[in-house]
Protein backbone atom coordinates (compact mmCIF):
# COMPACT_ATOMS: atom_id res chain seq x y z
CA UNK A 1 0.00 0.00 0.00
CA UNK A 2 1.15 3.54 -0.71
CA UNK A 3 1.40 6.05 2.13
CA UNK A 4 1.83 9.62 0.89
CA UNK A 5 4.10 11.64 3.17
CA UNK A 6 4.88 15.24 3.97
CA UNK A 7 8.66 15.56 4.03
CA UNK A 8 11.01 18.22 5.28
CA UNK A 9 14.14 18.15 3.12
CA UNK A 10 17.42 19.97 2.55
CA UNK A 11 18.29 21.10 -0.96
CA UNK A 12 22.06 21.54 -1.31
CA UNK A 13 23.81 23.86 -3.72
CA UNK A 14 24.16 21.18 -6.38
CA UNK A 15 20.43 20.44 -6.25
CA UNK A 16 20.67 17.23 -4.24
CA UNK A 17 17.73 16.59 -1.95
CA UNK A 18 18.10 14.94 1.46
CA UNK A 19 15.06 14.19 3.64
CA UNK A 20 15.44 15.48 7.20
CA UNK A 21 12.10 14.58 8.76
CA UNK A 22 8.79 12.99 7.76
CA UNK A 23 5.27 13.70 8.92
CA UNK A 24 3.27 10.51 9.54
CA UNK A 25 -0.43 10.13 8.67
CA UNK A 26 -1.51 11.03 12.24
CA UNK A 27 0.57 14.21 12.30
CA UNK A 28 3.55 12.88 14.29
CA UNK A 29 6.93 14.05 12.99
CA UNK A 30 9.92 11.71 12.89
CA UNK A 31 13.48 12.80 12.27
CA UNK A 32 15.53 10.99 9.63
CA UNK A 33 18.60 9.88 11.59
CA UNK A 34 20.68 8.75 8.62
CA UNK A 35 20.35 8.26 4.88
CA UNK A 36 22.07 4.96 4.04
CA UNK A 37 21.51 4.66 0.28
CA UNK A 38 20.01 6.72 -2.54
CA UNK A 39 19.24 5.26 -5.96
CA UNK A 40 16.54 5.14 -8.58
CA UNK A 41 14.16 2.29 -7.88
CA UNK A 42 10.62 1.15 -8.53
CA UNK A 43 8.17 0.32 -5.78
CA UNK A 44 6.07 -2.61 -6.96
CA UNK A 45 4.30 -2.78 -3.61
CA UNK A 46 3.13 0.83 -3.48
CA UNK A 47 3.09 1.51 -7.21
CA UNK A 48 5.48 4.09 -8.57
CA UNK A 49 9.09 4.83 -9.32
CA UNK A 50 11.60 7.50 -8.40
CA UNK A 51 14.54 8.11 -6.10
CA UNK A 52 14.55 5.64 -3.23
CA UNK A 53 16.13 6.80 0.04
CA UNK A 54 16.94 4.00 2.46
CA UNK A 55 16.88 5.77 5.84
CA UNK A 56 17.21 5.03 9.53
CA UNK A 57 14.23 6.47 11.39
CA UNK A 58 13.76 5.74 15.12
CA UNK A 59 16.08 2.75 14.86
CA UNK A 60 14.25 1.22 11.89
CA UNK A 61 15.36 1.00 8.29
CA UNK A 62 12.71 2.37 5.94
CA UNK A 63 12.51 3.22 2.24
CA UNK A 64 11.24 6.67 1.28
CA UNK A 65 10.42 7.26 -2.39
CA UNK A 66 10.52 10.61 -4.15
CA UNK A 67 8.42 10.28 -7.30
CA UNK A 68 8.61 13.67 -9.05
CA UNK A 69 8.67 15.45 -5.68
CA UNK A 70 5.74 13.46 -4.33
CA UNK A 71 7.03 11.45 -1.38
CA UNK A 72 5.65 8.12 -0.26
CA UNK A 73 6.42 4.99 1.73
CA UNK A 74 5.44 1.36 1.24
CA UNK A 75 3.26 -0.30 3.88
Amino acid at each position, binding site marked *: MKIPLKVNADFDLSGKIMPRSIEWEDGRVFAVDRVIDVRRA*ASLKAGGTGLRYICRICGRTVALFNDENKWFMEK
Partner: protein
Amino acid sequence: MRSILHVDMNNFYASVECLYHPEIRNFPVAVAGDPLNRHGIILAKNMIAKKLGVTTGEAIWEAKLKAPGLVLVPPDYKKYIRFSRMAREIYYEYSDQVEAFGLDENWIDLTGSLSCMHSDPVAIADTIRRRVKEELGVTVSVGVSFNKIFAKLGSDLKKPDATTVIPFEHFKEIVWPLPVGDLLYVGRSTARQLELIAINTIGDLARTDVAILRRRLGKWGEILWFFANGMDTSPVRKISESEQIKSIGNGTTCPRDLQTEQDVRLVFTVLAESVAARLRDCCVKCRGVQIFLRDNSLFTLSRQKQMEIPCCTSAPILETAMELFRQHYRWPKPLRSVSLSAIYLVTASRHVQLSLFDDTAERLLVQEQLEKTIDKLRDRFGHDAITRASALLDPKLTGFNPKEDHTIHPYSYFR
Protein backbone atom coordinates in the same frame (compact mmCIF):
# COMPACT_ATOMS: atom_id res chain seq x y z
CA MET B 1 31.41 -7.25 -36.60
CA ARG B 2 29.10 -4.82 -34.77
CA SER B 3 27.34 -5.57 -31.48
CA ILE B 4 23.88 -4.07 -31.47
CA LEU B 5 21.11 -4.36 -28.91
CA HIS B 6 17.45 -3.66 -29.51
CA VAL B 7 15.61 -2.99 -26.26
CA ASP B 8 11.82 -3.21 -26.37
CA MET B 9 9.75 -2.28 -23.31
CA ASN B 10 7.08 -4.98 -22.96
CA ASN B 11 3.44 -3.83 -23.19
CA PHE B 12 4.79 -0.38 -22.42
CA TYR B 13 1.73 1.79 -21.66
CA ALA B 14 -0.05 -1.07 -19.86
CA SER B 15 3.06 -1.96 -17.82
CA VAL B 16 3.44 1.63 -16.61
CA GLU B 17 -0.24 1.78 -15.63
CA CYS B 18 0.01 -1.57 -13.81
CA LEU B 19 3.06 -0.31 -11.94
CA TYR B 20 1.15 2.74 -10.70
CA HIS B 21 -2.03 0.80 -9.94
CA PRO B 22 -1.02 -2.39 -8.09
CA GLU B 23 -4.69 -3.11 -7.41
CA ILE B 24 -5.40 -3.91 -11.08
CA ARG B 25 -2.17 -5.82 -11.76
CA ASN B 26 -3.78 -9.26 -11.58
CA PHE B 27 -6.64 -8.42 -13.95
CA PRO B 28 -6.69 -8.08 -17.73
CA VAL B 29 -5.78 -4.41 -18.28
CA ALA B 30 -5.87 -2.30 -21.43
CA VAL B 31 -4.96 1.32 -22.04
CA ALA B 32 -7.64 2.73 -24.32
CA GLY B 33 -8.70 6.09 -25.74
CA ASP B 34 -11.88 7.87 -24.67
CA PRO B 35 -14.93 6.25 -26.33
CA LEU B 36 -17.01 9.44 -25.78
CA ASN B 37 -14.61 11.28 -28.07
CA ARG B 38 -14.66 8.26 -30.37
CA HIS B 39 -11.04 7.41 -29.60
CA GLY B 40 -12.17 4.09 -28.15
CA ILE B 41 -9.51 1.70 -29.36
CA ILE B 42 -7.04 -0.44 -27.44
CA LEU B 43 -3.62 1.24 -27.35
CA ALA B 44 -1.85 -1.37 -25.20
CA LYS B 45 -2.69 -4.37 -23.06
CA ASN B 46 -1.01 -6.37 -20.30
CA MET B 47 0.04 -10.02 -20.58
CA ILE B 48 -3.20 -11.30 -19.03
CA ALA B 49 -5.32 -9.41 -21.60
CA LYS B 50 -2.97 -10.55 -24.35
CA LYS B 51 -3.46 -14.19 -23.38
CA LEU B 52 -7.22 -13.68 -23.65
CA GLY B 53 -6.75 -12.50 -27.24
CA VAL B 54 -7.01 -8.72 -26.83
CA THR B 55 -5.05 -7.01 -29.61
CA THR B 56 -3.75 -3.48 -30.04
CA GLY B 57 -5.89 -1.37 -32.37
CA GLU B 58 -9.19 -3.16 -31.87
CA ALA B 59 -12.34 -1.43 -30.61
CA ILE B 60 -13.09 -1.51 -26.87
CA TRP B 61 -16.31 -3.49 -27.40
CA GLU B 62 -14.41 -6.17 -29.34
CA ALA B 63 -11.82 -6.44 -26.56
CA LYS B 64 -14.53 -6.68 -23.90
CA LEU B 65 -16.11 -9.62 -25.71
CA LYS B 66 -12.80 -11.48 -25.46
CA ALA B 67 -11.99 -10.37 -21.92
CA PRO B 68 -15.23 -9.60 -20.03
CA GLY B 69 -13.48 -8.31 -16.88
CA LEU B 70 -11.17 -6.03 -18.85
CA VAL B 71 -10.00 -3.01 -16.81
CA LEU B 72 -9.70 0.06 -19.02
CA VAL B 73 -7.28 2.87 -18.17
CA PRO B 74 -7.00 6.19 -20.06
CA PRO B 75 -3.57 6.95 -21.51
CA ASP B 76 -1.20 9.28 -19.64
CA TYR B 77 1.35 10.28 -22.28
CA LYS B 78 3.36 12.53 -19.95
CA LYS B 79 4.07 9.52 -17.76
CA TYR B 80 5.06 7.37 -20.74
CA ILE B 81 7.41 10.05 -22.08
CA ARG B 82 9.02 10.29 -18.62
CA PHE B 83 9.54 6.52 -18.46
CA SER B 84 10.93 6.52 -21.98
CA ARG B 85 13.44 9.22 -20.96
CA MET B 86 14.44 7.39 -17.78
CA ALA B 87 15.02 4.17 -19.73
CA ARG B 88 17.19 6.01 -22.23
CA GLU B 89 19.23 7.50 -19.38
CA ILE B 90 20.13 3.92 -18.40
CA TYR B 91 21.04 2.99 -21.99
CA TYR B 92 23.29 6.06 -22.34
CA GLU B 93 25.47 4.64 -19.55
CA TYR B 94 26.53 1.88 -21.94
CA SER B 95 26.99 3.74 -25.23
CA ASP B 96 26.68 7.15 -26.85
CA GLN B 97 24.96 5.49 -29.82
CA VAL B 98 21.37 5.13 -28.70
CA GLU B 99 18.61 5.54 -31.27
CA ALA B 100 14.94 5.64 -30.37
CA PHE B 101 12.33 3.87 -32.49
CA GLY B 102 9.11 5.08 -30.93
CA LEU B 103 8.74 5.69 -27.19
CA ASP B 104 9.38 2.13 -26.10
CA GLU B 105 12.09 0.83 -28.43
CA ASN B 106 15.76 1.72 -28.73
CA TRP B 107 18.81 0.44 -30.53
CA ILE B 108 22.13 0.58 -28.69
CA ASP B 109 25.42 0.09 -30.54
CA LEU B 110 27.93 -1.40 -28.08
CA THR B 111 30.74 -2.01 -30.60
CA GLY B 112 32.88 0.83 -29.31
CA SER B 113 32.07 0.36 -25.62
CA LEU B 114 32.85 -3.33 -25.21
CA SER B 115 36.61 -3.02 -24.83
CA CYS B 116 36.42 -0.34 -22.14
CA MET B 117 33.64 -2.13 -20.26
CA HIS B 118 35.43 -5.51 -20.25
CA SER B 119 32.15 -7.22 -20.87
CA ASP B 120 30.25 -8.96 -23.63
CA PRO B 121 27.02 -7.79 -25.29
CA VAL B 122 24.86 -10.51 -23.76
CA ALA B 123 26.04 -9.69 -20.23
CA ILE B 124 25.33 -5.98 -20.86
CA ALA B 125 21.90 -6.88 -22.29
CA ASP B 126 21.10 -8.84 -19.12
CA THR B 127 22.35 -5.99 -16.93
CA ILE B 128 20.16 -3.48 -18.78
CA ARG B 129 17.19 -5.82 -18.42
CA ARG B 130 17.75 -6.18 -14.68
CA ARG B 131 18.32 -2.46 -14.16
CA VAL B 132 15.19 -1.38 -16.04
CA LYS B 133 13.17 -3.86 -14.02
CA GLU B 134 14.60 -2.71 -10.68
CA GLU B 135 14.76 1.01 -11.37
CA LEU B 136 11.63 1.55 -13.47
CA GLY B 137 9.50 -1.44 -12.47
CA VAL B 138 8.77 -2.52 -16.05
CA THR B 139 10.26 -5.34 -18.09
CA VAL B 140 12.13 -5.23 -21.39
CA SER B 141 13.05 -7.76 -24.06
CA VAL B 142 16.47 -7.42 -25.62
CA GLY B 143 17.68 -8.66 -28.97
CA VAL B 144 21.45 -8.95 -29.47
CA SER B 145 22.81 -9.18 -32.98
CA PHE B 146 25.25 -7.77 -35.53
CA ASN B 147 22.81 -5.42 -37.25
CA LYS B 148 19.75 -3.37 -36.32
CA ILE B 149 17.22 -5.47 -38.23
CA PHE B 150 18.16 -8.77 -36.57
CA ALA B 151 18.50 -7.11 -33.16
CA LYS B 152 14.89 -5.93 -33.50
CA LEU B 153 13.79 -9.34 -34.71
CA GLY B 154 15.51 -10.88 -31.68
CA SER B 155 13.73 -8.64 -29.18
CA ASP B 156 10.40 -9.77 -30.66
CA LEU B 157 11.20 -13.49 -30.40
CA LYS B 158 11.07 -13.91 -26.62
CA LYS B 159 8.79 -11.81 -24.44
CA PRO B 160 8.58 -10.63 -21.71
CA ASP B 161 11.83 -10.00 -19.85
CA ALA B 162 14.21 -12.04 -22.01
CA THR B 163 17.42 -11.73 -23.99
CA THR B 164 17.64 -13.30 -27.46
CA VAL B 165 20.94 -13.59 -29.28
CA ILE B 166 21.18 -13.85 -33.08
CA PRO B 167 24.91 -14.28 -33.78
CA PHE B 168 26.37 -13.97 -37.28
CA GLU B 169 27.46 -17.63 -37.28
CA HIS B 170 23.94 -18.94 -36.62
CA PHE B 171 21.61 -16.33 -38.07
CA LYS B 172 20.47 -18.61 -40.89
CA GLU B 173 19.28 -21.29 -38.48
CA ILE B 174 17.49 -18.77 -36.23
CA VAL B 175 16.09 -16.19 -38.64
CA TRP B 176 15.45 -17.96 -41.92
CA PRO B 177 12.71 -20.35 -40.71
CA LEU B 178 10.64 -17.40 -39.37
CA PRO B 179 7.59 -16.14 -41.33
CA VAL B 180 8.50 -13.33 -43.71
CA GLY B 181 6.01 -11.02 -41.93
CA ASP B 182 8.29 -10.96 -38.86
CA LEU B 183 10.85 -8.87 -40.76
CA LEU B 184 10.75 -5.11 -40.16
CA TYR B 185 8.87 -3.36 -42.98
CA VAL B 186 7.15 -6.49 -44.27
CA GLY B 187 3.56 -5.49 -43.52
CA ARG B 188 0.39 -7.34 -44.38
CA SER B 189 0.29 -6.11 -47.96
CA THR B 190 3.98 -6.86 -48.72
CA ALA B 191 3.66 -10.30 -47.09
CA ARG B 192 0.67 -11.01 -49.35
CA GLN B 193 2.62 -9.97 -52.43
CA LEU B 194 5.55 -12.17 -51.40
CA GLU B 195 3.29 -15.14 -50.75
CA LEU B 196 2.07 -14.87 -54.35
CA ILE B 197 5.59 -15.75 -55.50
CA ALA B 198 5.91 -18.52 -52.90
CA ILE B 199 7.98 -16.54 -50.41
CA ASN B 200 6.68 -17.52 -46.97
CA THR B 201 9.75 -17.40 -44.74
CA ILE B 202 12.62 -14.97 -44.33
CA GLY B 203 14.86 -17.74 -45.73
CA ASP B 204 12.72 -17.91 -48.90
CA LEU B 205 13.17 -14.16 -49.26
CA ALA B 206 16.94 -14.37 -48.75
CA ARG B 207 17.34 -17.14 -51.32
CA THR B 208 15.22 -15.44 -54.01
CA ASP B 209 17.00 -13.73 -56.89
CA VAL B 210 17.17 -10.05 -56.01
CA ALA B 211 16.19 -9.10 -59.60
CA ILE B 212 12.84 -10.85 -59.15
CA LEU B 213 12.20 -8.95 -55.93
CA ARG B 214 13.18 -5.66 -57.56
CA ARG B 215 10.74 -6.30 -60.40
CA ARG B 216 7.97 -7.22 -57.98
CA LEU B 217 8.46 -4.63 -55.20
CA GLY B 218 10.76 -2.02 -56.71
CA LYS B 219 13.59 -0.69 -54.52
CA TRP B 220 11.83 -2.14 -51.46
CA GLY B 221 12.42 -5.62 -52.83
CA GLU B 222 16.13 -5.01 -52.84
CA ILE B 223 16.13 -3.47 -49.35
CA LEU B 224 14.18 -6.43 -47.92
CA TRP B 225 16.56 -8.87 -49.61
CA PHE B 226 19.49 -7.12 -47.91
CA PHE B 227 17.65 -7.26 -44.57
CA ALA B 228 16.92 -11.00 -44.93
CA ASN B 229 20.56 -11.76 -45.75
CA GLY B 230 21.85 -9.90 -42.70
CA MET B 231 23.45 -7.18 -44.81
CA ASP B 232 21.79 -4.18 -43.14
CA THR B 233 24.57 -1.70 -42.45
CA SER B 234 22.55 1.28 -41.21
CA PRO B 235 24.27 2.93 -38.24
CA VAL B 236 22.81 3.53 -34.80
CA ARG B 237 22.52 7.28 -34.40
CA LYS B 238 24.72 9.09 -31.88
CA ILE B 239 23.29 11.24 -29.09
CA SER B 240 24.49 14.44 -30.70
CA GLU B 241 23.11 13.64 -34.14
CA SER B 242 19.73 15.25 -34.36
CA GLU B 243 17.40 13.57 -36.74
CA GLN B 244 16.35 15.26 -39.90
CA ILE B 245 12.65 16.00 -39.82
CA LYS B 246 10.91 15.23 -43.08
CA SER B 247 7.37 16.24 -42.23
CA ILE B 248 5.33 17.65 -39.37
CA GLY B 249 1.71 16.64 -39.03
CA ASN B 250 -1.24 16.43 -36.69
CA GLY B 251 -4.51 14.60 -36.98
CA THR B 252 -7.61 13.88 -34.94
CA THR B 253 -10.60 11.60 -34.79
CA CYS B 254 -13.43 14.08 -34.25
CA PRO B 255 -15.98 13.76 -31.43
CA ARG B 256 -18.71 13.73 -34.11
CA ASP B 257 -18.68 13.08 -37.86
CA LEU B 258 -17.85 16.12 -39.99
CA GLN B 259 -20.85 16.89 -42.21
CA THR B 260 -20.07 20.21 -43.88
CA GLU B 261 -17.17 22.12 -45.33
CA GLN B 262 -17.33 24.49 -42.38
CA ASP B 263 -16.85 21.57 -39.96
CA VAL B 264 -13.77 20.49 -41.90
CA ARG B 265 -12.46 24.05 -41.97
CA LEU B 266 -12.84 24.38 -38.19
CA VAL B 267 -10.87 21.20 -37.51
CA PHE B 268 -8.24 22.00 -40.15
CA THR B 269 -7.82 25.45 -38.54
CA VAL B 270 -6.84 23.90 -35.21
CA LEU B 271 -4.54 21.40 -36.94
CA ALA B 272 -2.94 24.07 -39.15
CA GLU B 273 -2.24 26.27 -36.11
CA SER B 274 -0.55 23.37 -34.34
CA VAL B 275 1.46 22.31 -37.39
CA ALA B 276 2.57 25.90 -38.07
CA ALA B 277 3.61 26.40 -34.43
CA ARG B 278 5.62 23.17 -34.53
CA LEU B 279 7.27 24.27 -37.79
CA ARG B 280 8.34 27.49 -36.07
CA ASP B 281 9.60 25.54 -33.03
CA CYS B 282 11.81 23.45 -35.32
CA CYS B 283 12.93 26.52 -37.34
CA VAL B 284 11.70 25.05 -40.61
CA LYS B 285 9.22 26.06 -43.30
CA CYS B 286 7.16 23.85 -45.57
CA ARG B 287 6.78 23.91 -49.31
CA GLY B 288 3.86 21.51 -49.42
CA VAL B 289 0.78 20.31 -47.60
CA GLN B 290 -0.69 16.84 -47.35
CA ILE B 291 -4.17 16.03 -46.13
CA PHE B 292 -5.48 12.68 -44.98
CA LEU B 293 -9.22 12.00 -44.74
CA ARG B 294 -11.07 9.00 -43.33
CA ASP B 295 -14.83 8.70 -43.75
CA ASN B 296 -17.22 6.93 -41.38
CA SER B 297 -16.88 3.66 -43.30
CA LEU B 298 -13.11 3.93 -42.65
CA PHE B 299 -12.31 4.57 -46.32
CA THR B 300 -9.16 6.69 -46.46
CA LEU B 301 -7.89 9.25 -48.92
CA SER B 302 -4.62 11.15 -48.96
CA ARG B 303 -3.69 14.05 -51.25
CA GLN B 304 -0.82 16.53 -51.36
CA LYS B 305 0.06 19.80 -53.03
CA GLN B 306 3.16 21.95 -53.36
CA MET B 307 3.22 25.63 -52.43
CA GLU B 308 5.03 28.40 -54.26
CA ILE B 309 6.43 30.20 -51.23
CA PRO B 310 7.76 28.28 -48.22
CA CYS B 311 5.85 29.20 -45.07
CA CYS B 312 5.49 28.45 -41.38
CA THR B 313 2.19 30.24 -40.78
CA SER B 314 -1.23 28.71 -40.39
CA ALA B 315 -3.20 30.70 -43.01
CA PRO B 316 -1.50 29.44 -46.20
CA ILE B 317 -1.33 25.90 -44.80
CA LEU B 318 -5.05 26.03 -44.03
CA GLU B 319 -5.95 27.50 -47.43
CA THR B 320 -3.90 24.88 -49.30
CA ALA B 321 -5.48 22.12 -47.23
CA MET B 322 -8.98 23.46 -47.96
CA GLU B 323 -8.17 23.78 -51.66
CA LEU B 324 -7.03 20.14 -51.73
CA PHE B 325 -10.12 19.13 -49.81
CA ARG B 326 -12.53 20.92 -52.15
CA GLN B 327 -10.76 19.45 -55.20
CA HIS B 328 -10.74 15.87 -54.04
CA TYR B 329 -13.64 15.25 -51.68
CA ARG B 330 -17.21 15.15 -52.99
CA TRP B 331 -18.88 14.16 -49.72
CA PRO B 332 -19.86 10.59 -50.49
CA LYS B 333 -19.91 10.09 -46.71
CA PRO B 334 -19.36 12.18 -43.57
CA LEU B 335 -15.78 12.27 -42.29
CA ARG B 336 -14.62 10.58 -39.11
CA SER B 337 -11.01 11.72 -38.90
CA VAL B 338 -8.73 14.18 -40.67
CA SER B 339 -4.98 14.88 -40.60
CA LEU B 340 -2.83 17.64 -41.92
CA SER B 341 0.93 17.49 -42.59
CA ALA B 342 3.49 20.04 -43.66
CA ILE B 343 5.86 18.40 -46.16
CA TYR B 344 8.92 19.32 -48.26
CA LEU B 345 10.56 21.09 -45.32
CA VAL B 346 13.30 23.69 -45.78
CA THR B 347 15.28 25.65 -43.22
CA ALA B 348 13.51 28.79 -42.04
CA SER B 349 16.62 30.95 -42.08
CA ARG B 350 17.05 30.98 -45.85
CA HIS B 351 16.32 34.14 -47.77
CA VAL B 352 12.89 34.84 -49.18
CA GLN B 353 12.53 36.10 -52.75
CA LEU B 354 10.18 39.07 -52.71
CA SER B 355 8.19 39.79 -55.85
CA LEU B 356 8.10 43.08 -57.75
CA PHE B 357 4.50 42.48 -58.74
CA ASP B 358 2.69 41.32 -55.64
CA ASP B 359 3.25 41.43 -51.91
CA THR B 360 2.37 37.83 -50.96
CA ALA B 361 5.82 37.07 -49.55
CA GLU B 362 5.87 40.31 -47.57
CA ARG B 363 2.43 39.63 -46.14
CA LEU B 364 3.62 36.17 -45.12
CA LEU B 365 6.51 37.71 -43.17
CA VAL B 366 4.09 40.02 -41.33
CA GLN B 367 1.81 37.07 -40.59
CA GLU B 368 4.83 35.15 -39.30
CA GLN B 369 5.60 37.92 -36.81
CA LEU B 370 1.98 37.90 -35.66
CA GLU B 371 1.94 34.14 -35.13
CA LYS B 372 5.29 34.22 -33.30
CA THR B 373 3.73 36.73 -30.92
CA ILE B 374 0.80 34.35 -30.42
CA ASP B 375 3.31 31.55 -29.68
CA LYS B 376 4.89 33.73 -26.99
CA LEU B 377 1.51 34.56 -25.45
CA ARG B 378 0.58 30.87 -25.36
CA ASP B 379 3.96 29.92 -23.87
CA ARG B 380 3.49 32.39 -21.04
CA PHE B 381 -0.23 32.24 -20.35
CA GLY B 382 -1.38 28.87 -21.72
CA HIS B 383 -2.88 27.69 -24.96
CA ASP B 384 -6.34 29.12 -24.27
CA ALA B 385 -5.00 32.63 -23.54
CA ILE B 386 -5.64 33.56 -27.14
CA THR B 387 -7.84 31.77 -29.60
CA ARG B 388 -9.58 32.35 -32.90
CA ALA B 389 -13.16 33.55 -32.76
CA SER B 390 -14.05 30.85 -35.29
CA ALA B 391 -13.05 28.19 -32.76
CA LEU B 392 -16.04 29.28 -30.67
CA LEU B 393 -18.46 28.28 -33.45
CA ASP B 394 -18.22 24.68 -32.26
CA PRO B 395 -16.06 24.41 -29.14
CA LYS B 396 -16.55 20.62 -28.95
CA LEU B 397 -15.08 20.16 -32.40
CA THR B 398 -12.22 22.60 -31.88
CA GLY B 399 -11.59 22.00 -28.17
CA PHE B 400 -8.34 20.09 -28.52
CA ASN B 401 -4.70 21.12 -28.56
CA PRO B 402 -2.79 18.75 -30.81
CA LYS B 403 0.52 20.49 -30.11
CA GLU B 404 0.53 19.75 -26.40
CA ASP B 405 -2.07 17.02 -25.83
CA HIS B 406 0.11 14.18 -26.96
CA THR B 407 2.86 14.77 -29.40
CA ILE B 408 4.04 11.27 -30.12
CA HIS B 409 5.37 11.01 -33.61
CA PRO B 410 5.67 7.93 -35.77
CA TYR B 411 9.26 6.89 -36.39
CA SER B 412 10.77 5.75 -39.63
CA TYR B 413 13.78 3.44 -39.97
CA PHE B 414 15.00 5.41 -42.99
CA ARG B 415 15.80 8.80 -41.48
